[in-house]
């Protein structure tokens, strides 16, 4: 993971509507956007950011880049990501919503083979408050600190960050891993990264009903995570049929032999409690839970205090 003041960043799809809104916001935050990519727009500029037709062309001109933030249309995401990987970029943040699962499966396979970290798609990206913004997070909601937020939501992540900031809990990093069913990096991967991250003291996991992501994450916390984790799950009062995800997902879970109730708030909260993860009833309760777990120290076998 390399998301610091030193990181060099590229924006793919910089002339797309979303790209042209967020690239300047990201640039304002820390000035690390070296170039934007938009085939056919090579030679132009967007608020001082030079635009190139091709990733490798940009790298030839601006030097090595750590991360690319991708705003291209959904059916072009796979190609943009493969272009970045082929050019040697090993951290990708895909903001775009609506990438076909088949494309993501192919991207995940190739990303795994090339050890590329893919965040998203359909995600707000990453913010390291005071250092770097890689995505759509409204910077004003965030303050530097020691809490790592990993979320499966977009705007709800902002809400949670705002509650924490107002309560004096700054963030070491905050990211949304993406709301789609097929995403690059998972809760488990990020829990591991945050567990090892020296700037992070405690982890806030933000989930919602649907899919088995939180259940799998809870299992992983039991096995591998030492730092304290608290969670918030949205959708606990929703009628069960709503928002429990795509029909295909249900078929998949059922056929895959998972028990029927996977995906419900009940199942997620039970799994998290089994992992000794306190679950907030509302975002505004998170600061209290953080105080409790920080008072109690790390979850087990503390590596550092």
């Amino acid at each position: 993971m390399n998301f610091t003041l030193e990181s060099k960043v590229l924006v793919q799809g910089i002339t797309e509507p979303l790209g042209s809104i967020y690239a300047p916001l990201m640039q304002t935050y820390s000035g690390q956007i070296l170039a934007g990519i938009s085939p056919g727009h090579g030679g132009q500029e967007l608020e001082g950011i030079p635009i190139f037709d091709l990733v490798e062309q940009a790298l030839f001109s601006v030097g090595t880049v750590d991360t690319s933030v991708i705003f291209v249309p959904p059916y072009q995401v796979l190609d943009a990501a493969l272009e970045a990987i082929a050019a040697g970029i090993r951290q990708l943040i895909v903001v775009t919503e609506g990438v076909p699962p088949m494309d993501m499966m192919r991207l995940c396979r190739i990303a795994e083979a090339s050890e590329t970290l893919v965040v998203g798609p359909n995600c707000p990206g990453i913010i390291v408050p005071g250092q770097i913004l890689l995505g759509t997070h409204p910077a004003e909601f965030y303050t530097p600190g020691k809490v790592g937020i990993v979320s499966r939501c977009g705007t709800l992540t902002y809400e949670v960050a705002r509650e924490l900031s107002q309560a004096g809990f700054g963030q070491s990093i905050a990211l949304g891993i993406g709301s789609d069913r097929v995403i690059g990096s998972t809760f488990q991967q990020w829990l591991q990264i945050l567990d090892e991250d020296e700037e992070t003291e405690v982890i806030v996991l933000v989930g919602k009903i649907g899919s088995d992501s939180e259940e799998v994450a809870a299992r992983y916390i039991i096995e591998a995570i030492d730092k304290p984790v608290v969670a918030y799950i949205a959708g606990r009062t929703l009628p069960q049929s709503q928002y429990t995800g795509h029909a295909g997902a249900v078929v998949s879970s059922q056929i895959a032999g998972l028990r029927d109730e996977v995906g419900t708030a009940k199942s997620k909260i039970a799994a998290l409690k089994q992992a000794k993860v306190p679950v907030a009833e509302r975002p505004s309760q998170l600061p209290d839970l953080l105080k409790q777990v920080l008072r109690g120290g790390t979850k087990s076998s503390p590596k550092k205090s």
Partner: protein
Amino acid sequence: MDLLEYQAKQLFHEMGIPILPSQQINHPKDLKGLKIPYPVVLKSQVYTGGRGKAGGIRFVENTIDAVAAAQTIFNLPITGMYPAVLLAEAKYDADRELYLAVILDWSARRPLLLGSQQGGLDVEATIGAMQQVIVDQEFSPFYARRLALKMGLQGELIQSVSDILEKMYQLFLQKDLDLVEINPLAVSPAGELMALDGKITANDDALGRHPDLAALQAKIPNQIKTRILPRDLSETTLVELEGNIGILCNGAGLTMSTVDLVHQAGGRLASFLNLGSEYRHNDSPAVLRDRIQQGLELMMQSKNLKVVLVNILGNVMLCKQTAEAIATHLQRQLDSCTTPFVVRLVGDQFDESRQMLQALNLPLFDDLDEAIAEAISLSNSVLRAK
């Protein structure tokens, strides 16, 4: 998007998967021109399972019986839905019945092959006997043979069943499917294979690159279009409940959370509406303003609506843009709309936005709990006023 059996079988046929001679029946009298020899099976073409138990599948021996049976099936609702089409199909003598499917394994981020020797039943009933093979790298037919062996198949069936699976996988890949299922795949006494029933679910995100599948979607009767998740502006879905507070929100997680908070605070919802995430690549400020306004218009259609709670979070520009969109909406409907609004927005432009909305007598909050308390209080006062 689900396909009907006859649509799925058409795709099977194009891919070289064997299907029985069959004919689409749009009206009972079509049976008089039937080209398939009797006995024939008539099957209700509906999107739900369990049609056999419900009486939607009938075997007939001659034209008179067939017309009568077709009339019955056309008039038989299955989980509330009537078929627009029946499928008339030749009968088949199966020695054994297998189950085969290709699905997306969302957690593994890989396709998954599924198979069982106990086909013909509900999937749920045979989960115990279901065998799985993850397609870990680029597909190659050996993955299919691996499944055939795990299923316990032997001899020539290993190759012939693998061949069917390979074709199912090609279909799955070429058409961006979430699911392709053959259940049952009949095995004749001579070892020949026949797809007797099939199910295909196309991925909604990928429909834009499959005009042939998108055309099938256009044919889906309105009564069941609610199965389709919202994808673009025209399909933002309003979820209606029994209370009196309406929630307009952006993003699934924030919407769920806002619903929870209202419920937890004792409020009762008339409806809620998620405007969708901020991550549509073509969301310019103009598109967002339009979407907010269309969302508000849709929201006003909910029954029992007494108070609207707007909770929209996002980038620095969104605060003022939302306030503007609400103002435009209210000015446009000034005479007809008396429903009170409670608006929660956050951002640098909060003060500016507050002034804009104050001119319309709308309270603007930056604290969500406060906004919710106000919305509930307003909804209660409306109730008391009754």
